[in-house]
């Protein structure tokens, strides 16, 4: 569905998402990232230097202009120094723009590159992904860690430039006046260090505000999600009151945070002001005994202001590099995950007969087989085995924000160990015989890609993707309108088309939100039918559909799939009547086999389809 790219764009920079990152350690990963950007990071560093160095030169030039020009009334000298000042300012402005330009480029390389890698990793791992890394963590790598790399790499360039400008400023100061220079050089880091004790309560206030604010946001989304109930049944006052209570709590925490921020700002004003006072005092006494000129004193005022910038950059860099390492570790854990199976193997024989050893069920080619089970989990597990899907695993605990730093780190280490253990178990499961054979050959011998093409399982949780009705039914964009229409008719989904003013181009929202369960289920069915694989395994394809529509689908489905291999896992008598064979599972084993007529007197069979008729209803 995607048109070929029209030539080269100037943005984004080219990204090769398939290159292999260095996954040996987080810092190696960060350095690999920097190298992979090619000339962008060196260029950014150079630009940052040409932005910061002029700022280091300005106070000196200003002092020279005053001494050599203004004080003496020497117009030529004044103009000369001013011309130099203008030049330096111009270089600084251009350097600033270039720095910003390269930083954005580097930032985007990090964001888009990570997002593309995450997407590739997700599509490569398929259902194994959720067994390796919890969904929330995958999404946070894509949405926030990708951003962190931009910040870390930018800080890397910034800190180099800060070091250069700091050195230049120091040399200029020390050559002008060693005493004053030393005072500035020693007191600047002390001043920054002096505000660290208040940074801790500030960080705590920030964290408290953030935590409570995110609870407030979840209260709001809770209200929006449950709004049908609140407006339908009632409870508006209760939940408005709950929201207000939390909102006031966040307000108070916000004010506490604002107070600490005010403290930090007041301290920084006090300390830098006192440094200035010290400089004035020392400078004036030097001036009085004639060892310092007016212009030089003015320069020192400028340096006292300038030097805080590189100092802050040093402190920030340490912080951002650590944050970058954390992001790198999470990203590596995702990128290092691998599929458990070999990627090559024998092709799947066409029209194969499938045999599941555990249940004893045989799927005969070109026929429609119904599977009935008293335990819905047993039949879903059978579908997974027939499709070679690993069993679903329990969700992993995510980070508990309540834990302290050390406990959180050790919990994280345990999780990583558990993940590695699970990957090892999966690899073992995938290496040994699978227990399902196609014409006598075990699945473990077969090429997994070929198997996925020939045997398609449409499971109960199958997702719809945002797009149009057309792309929902035909995401591949390779089918004809006639084929799609047939699939829609078989799935009895014409009314979904009718309800959309734009027809095939009607919008389907993310995950089919806005459609009813029955509508979603019928589009999923139409999509699976359009794919038309050799063997199609449908798990509960009509569980959310009304009896009228189900009857219609049952008849059309059997006719549509005639001569193809189809497995339907269901308890609906309407569907089962259309099956060539029905296999009844008891305790996960095939207990009886036959068609609907033959099984009529079978008590196990009757019990399940009676449930299909009765118990699932009110």
């Amino acid at each position, binding site marked *: 569905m*995607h048109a070929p790219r029209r030539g080269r*764009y100037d*943005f*984004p920079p080219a990204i090769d998402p398939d290159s292999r990152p260095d996954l040996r350690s987080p810092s190696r990963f960060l350095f690999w990232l920097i190298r992979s950007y090619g000339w962008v990071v060196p260029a950014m560093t150079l630009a940052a230097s040409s932005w910061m160095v002029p700022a280091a030169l300005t106070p000196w030039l*200003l002092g020279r202009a005053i001494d050599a020009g*203004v*004080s003496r*009334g020497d117009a030529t000298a004044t103009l000369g120094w*001013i011309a130099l000042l203008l030049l330096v300012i111009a270089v600084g*402005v251009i350097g600033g723009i270039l720095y*910003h*330009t390269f930083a954005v480029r580097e930032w985007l390389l990090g964001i888009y590159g990570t997002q593309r890698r995450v*997407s590739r990793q997700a599509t490569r791992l*398929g259902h194994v992904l959720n067994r390796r890394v919890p*969904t929330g963590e995958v999404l946070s790598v*894509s*949405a926030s860690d990708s951003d962190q790399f931009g910040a870390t790499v930018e800080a890397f360039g910034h800190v180099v430039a800060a070091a250069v400008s700091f050195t230049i400023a120091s040399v200029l100061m020390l050559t002008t006046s060693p005493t004053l220079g030393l005072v500035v050089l020693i007191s600047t880091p002390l001043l920054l260090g002096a505000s660290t004790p208040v940074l801790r309560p500030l960080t705590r206030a920030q964290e408290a505000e953030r935590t409570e604010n995110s609870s407030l*946001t*979840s209260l*709001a*989304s*809770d*209200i*929006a999600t*449950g*709004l049908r109930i609140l407006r*339908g*049944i*009632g*409870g508006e006052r*209760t939940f*408005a009151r709950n929201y207000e209570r939390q909102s006031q709590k966040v307000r108070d925490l*916000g*004010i506490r945070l*604002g107070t600490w921020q*005010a403290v930090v700002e*007041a301290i920084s*004003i*006090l300390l830098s002001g006192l440094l200035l006072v010290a400089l*004035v005092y020392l400078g*004036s006494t030097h001036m009085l005994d004639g060892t310092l000129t007016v212009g030089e*004193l*003015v320069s020192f005022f400028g340096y006292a202001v300038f030097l805080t910038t590189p100092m802050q950059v040093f402190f920030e860099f340490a912080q951002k590099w650590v944050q970058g390492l954390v992001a790198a570790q999470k990203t590596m854990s995702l990128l290092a995950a691998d599929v458990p199976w070999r990627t090559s193997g024998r092709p799947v024989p066409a029209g194969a007969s499938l045999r599941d050893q555990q249940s004893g069920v045989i799927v005969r080619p070109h026929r429609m087989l119904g599977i009935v089970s008293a335990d819905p989990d047993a039949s879903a597990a059978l579908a997974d085995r027939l499709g070679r899907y690993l069993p679903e695993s329990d969700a992993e605990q995510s980070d508990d924000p309540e834990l302290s730093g050390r406990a959180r780190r050790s919990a994280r280490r345990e999780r990583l160990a558990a993940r590695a253990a699970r990957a090892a178990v999966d690899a073992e499961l995938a290496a040994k015989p699978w227990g399902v054979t196609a014409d006598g050959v075990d699945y473990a011998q077969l090429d997994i890609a070929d198997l996925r093409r020939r045997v398609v399982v449409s499971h109960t949780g*199958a997702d719809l993707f*945002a797009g149009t009705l057309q792309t929902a039914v035909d995401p591949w964009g390779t089918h004809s*309108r006639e084929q799609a*229409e047939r699939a829609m008719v078989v799935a009895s989904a014409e*009314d979904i088309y009718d309800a959309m003013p734009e*027809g095939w181009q009607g*919008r389907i929202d*993310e*995950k089919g939100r806005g459609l009813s*369960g029955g509508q979603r289920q019928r589009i999923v069915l139409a999509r699976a039918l359009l794919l038309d694989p050799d063997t199609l395994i449908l798990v509960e394809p009509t569980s*959310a559909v*009304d*009896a009228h529509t189900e*009857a219609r689908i049952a008849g059309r489905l059997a006719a549509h799939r005639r001569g193809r291999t189809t497995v339907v896992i269901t308890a609906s008598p*309407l569907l089962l*009547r259309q099956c060539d064979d029905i296999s009844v599972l008891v305790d996960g084993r095939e207990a009886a086999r036959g068609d609907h007529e033959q099984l009529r007197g079978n008590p196990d069979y009757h019990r399940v389809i009676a449930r299909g*008729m009765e118990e699932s209803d009110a």
Partner: protein
Amino acid sequence: MREHLFSQTSADTWRSTPAPSRLPEGLDVPTGAGRSARLAALARRHRIRAATAREVFADARAPRQGFPVATSGQAAGFLGGLIRGRRVMLAWAVVLNVGAAVAGLVAPFMLGRLIDQVTGGSLDVSGLTGLVMLVAGVIVAQSLLTFAARRSSAVLGYDLLAAAREEVVRIVLRLPLGHVESSGSGDLLTRITSDVSKMANAARWALPNLIVSVVLIGMTLVAMAVNSWLLTLPMLGTALIMWFGGRTYLSRATAGYITESRTYSVINTTTTETVEGARTVEALGLGGLRNAQLDEDTEVSAQAERYTMTLRNMLFAMVDSSFQLPLVGIVLLGAWGHTEGWVTIGQITTAALYVSQLQGPLDRVIAVLDHLQLGVVATARLIGVAQLEDDRTPGEAEPDGVKLTGSGLRFGYRPDLDVLHGVDVDLRPGERLAIVGPSGSGKSTLGRLVAGINRPRSGEVTVGGVDVMDLPLDRLRTEVALVTQEHHVFVGSVRDNVVLARETTASDAEVEQALRAVDAWGWVSKLPGGLDAELGHGKTPLTPAQAQQVALARLIVADPHTLVLDEATSLIDPSSARHLEGSMAALLDGRAVIAIAHRLHTAHDADRIAVVDGGRIVEIGSHHELLELEGQYADLWRTWRD
């Protein structure tokens, strides 16, 4: 008739060629062209990006679907109203900031005087010490005033924000029932999360900083004029650059940033779908297509980033030069003025220090205005929700009895397509009526009209002789309730989760009784805190069966005489069905029920069955009557049951 639309228009709406790229034409870079051609292409690309941003912005201001958006004027009015209610807070914030700014301006001024006295030789060491102590004292005062000023600005910002978001939630909780039921929660969810956070940014960061920066810039200019009017002249250049440049930037930036953030939500949506649907992607061989879609998403996003980058570059060029160039001007004018004897070196020093102090506020003021604009746009989206018209017309009439009747009901979600074509239905007190029919036949719509969710296009639904649309919501809820498949558990206590309909009147005993009726009291009484135990996301987790019991207990507390059960099958998950049978029976006991049935068993047990097809009731009667009729229902029943 229904199949007609599909077979008639399918050929017209099907797209047989691949969808065009989402990137507009003209963004490619010419290769091998001359410099002027390349520059022209660069300008063209910028124009294309600007046009895209304007389109996205226009769409954000007047969306084609979803909830309406208010105008910027209305949004500013809303925020202005909140500020007017906080005049005292605002006054304090401004006064304290002026104080802090003035204190900050004293030190450079005195340094200038000091330099003049030192160079003029009119100062000895003891005089110097006195002056320096004075400056130190002023700095201490400045730091104290700054603390008070920043704190008061923060109080104003956070207080305003709390009031604004609480008002927004109250607006959301007043949304007309019909709109809540028909529109998905997606748009509302985005607004109540991401737009509130943009509004929050504006209120708690931008607003206080605007006050700080504007006061600082204003006071510094005054101080410069006091120091030397001659040396203030270069600031005219700054003012001109900032005025015109700032306007140019601000008029474009909002659209640029909105476009940018929208491209990131597209990327997030694509990634979330791919990751959550990883199994589906694998099963259907969609991997390559998902990757290609993400790649295109990032390319579209890169163009939006490229646009705002250019805007920022222009802004940086402007801000950097606007505060650095006056420095040159000051030295130049100072040198001239000094030879003429108009200014002293001290005044030049003071002016230079003032200019360097202006960098921060000048940098900030544009960024602040930027965020304020974004905040106003977000606020416009938030209060736009309030513009939905309620189609209910609550009156004074009291229902006489509990008989529910619908007559001549016609209704359509689209003006050109009716779903119901004149339906008459009446429900006897205590009766069970099942509605069956194929999907799209209008049976759910009928349920919604009967429950008073939507107003029929023509015809009316009455309860006890009063139109349901004329009943106040609080009253309607005790008459008829629509039970959908949703069984959302709210964040809140067990009591909060159950009292809903009678939140102001129900006692704890009644809540307990309702929980007992649905067999839930056993596990609720064991929770720490009992009725006060916190439920919902991140709190005590409930099993699906327990969540369903809570949903049923809500209805018992509401105690309506008529229930409309929509897709009741889905309300009861098969694995917990047996367990919930008793709870459900307790709820239905003694009430009239309209069940929109998927399974024929429900229909079989009902007193009467209505078969809906093509927006009309085609058969109605008891199970046996319908079997004798040998119509649709009888056919279906026989296939089902054989």
